[in-house]
């Protein structure tokens, strides 16, 4: 009897974790295609295209969690209003970064390898993007919450976007004595500059 109980629970646990691992690639492919197809659509303006991509990224990335992690110790000192503004600006910054990167891949073929779950229950999906002369591997890190998946990081050639952004933001935050409010205006200016580049290209 005890054996059957253990077996029953093991089967539930196995199917439950492998469910997301198997579905992750399909889900990711759908979301990546939305972004890449936006670049192939010539009937929309650059701004409309970016807003479409931004919406997809905001819906599928763990933007708030990433924003908090990247702010580091500046987060604790900030007021509620400043935190809210920072998260809003960060989400746009994240979208601008991803959109800018994905634009380079829009005319290339890609393949998603089978997904796997690491020891922290993070699902890893490798995306191999092929160019005429070789390929680059982008690894998507996905986490499950509320019975769906969210992207928590992506790695291009072993370089994590989240780790790079944390280091970059921390370097800038040091200059403003970890004042998130002051940093928000720097981030907004950078976002505006990046957005103009995307719109005017």
């Amino acid at each position, binding site marked *: 009897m005890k054996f059957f109980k253990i077996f029953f629970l093991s089967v539930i646990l196995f199917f439950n974790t492998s469910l997301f691992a198997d579905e992750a690639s399909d889900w990711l492919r759908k979301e990546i295609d939305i972004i890449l197809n936006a670049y192939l659509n010539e009937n929309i303006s650059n701004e409309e295209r970016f807003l479409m991509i931004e919406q997809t990224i905001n819906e599928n990335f763990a933007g708030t969690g990433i924003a908090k992690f990247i702010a580091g110790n500046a987060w604790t000192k900030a007021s509620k209003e400043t935190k809210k503004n920072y998260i809003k600006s960060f989400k746009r910054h994240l979208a601008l970064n991803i959109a800018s990167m994905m634009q380079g891949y829009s005319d290339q073929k890609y393949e998603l390898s089978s997904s796997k779950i690491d020891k922290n229950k993070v699902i890893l999906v490798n995306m191999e993007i092929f160019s005429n002369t070789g390929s680059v591997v982008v690894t998507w890190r996905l986490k499950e919450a509320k019975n769906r998946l969210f992207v928590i990081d992506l790695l291009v050639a072993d370089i994590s976007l989240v780790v*790079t952004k944390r280091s970059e933001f921390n370097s800038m935050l040091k200059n403003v004595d970890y004042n998130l409010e002051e940093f928000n205006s720097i981030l907004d200016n950078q976002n505006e500059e990046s957005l103009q580049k995307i719109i005017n290209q």
Partner: protein
Amino acid sequence: MIRNKFIFFTIIFFLFNYNLFASESDEVNTQPDDFETSKVEDEIYDPFEPVNRAIFSFNNVADRVVLEPVAKGYKKLPSPIQSGISNFLSNLRAPLVVVNQLLQGQGENAIQSSGRFIINSTVGLLGIFDVAEKIGIEEKEEDFGQTLATWGVGDGFYIVLPLFGPSNIRDTSGMLITMVTDPINAYAVSEGEAWLVPMRTAANAVDQRSKIIDEVNALRDNSVDYYAAVRSSYYQNRKAAIANVDDSELTPLPLISIEFE
């Protein structure tokens, strides 16, 4: 009684598993470390940051004015020509890759890389065609910086080299050892063709830069501090190369909490 406990446990397990306790999922679930000064930033010892930033700015201008346009032009070449040049340059690096693999105790990799070099230099017409790859012998890169790291030599401080870009004391030493010991360069110099050495370095730079045009531009156009972004990227890339991480699962990365507004 035991049966009831089992049913209760199973129901609770299901509820947690499928997040029916939605309010629990909304709770902030960050790690205490999240609010500490970035460990990633602290690990990078950069005592000459002002000087490095000045050299970085110079390199950035040189990249925009010379390297990037040349790399973009190179990318317009027919892909077989690009692949041929890239394969040829890569094959020239192979003898030192073998030496470094041996110095790191990677006997099997050294045999494979030697095999690659022999096959590509002969059947692959001086390395222009990567025949070895087609028969399943994959390319593996190792350099003296990685070898020194494997022997326990630390990074030293971060340094930005004019034209060569981001490095550290260990990797710069490795690069100097490469320059001195490279048999192809030594042969060119002994034959009175020393001009081939900087030509080869420049060709390598253009070839490598052409492979990351989009990535570099995305980083440069969207960074609040491009210098810090490149410094972090350099260290992450080197750490993975030293650890020979082929699998991202092995890379220690932050666990981001999912939060709902």
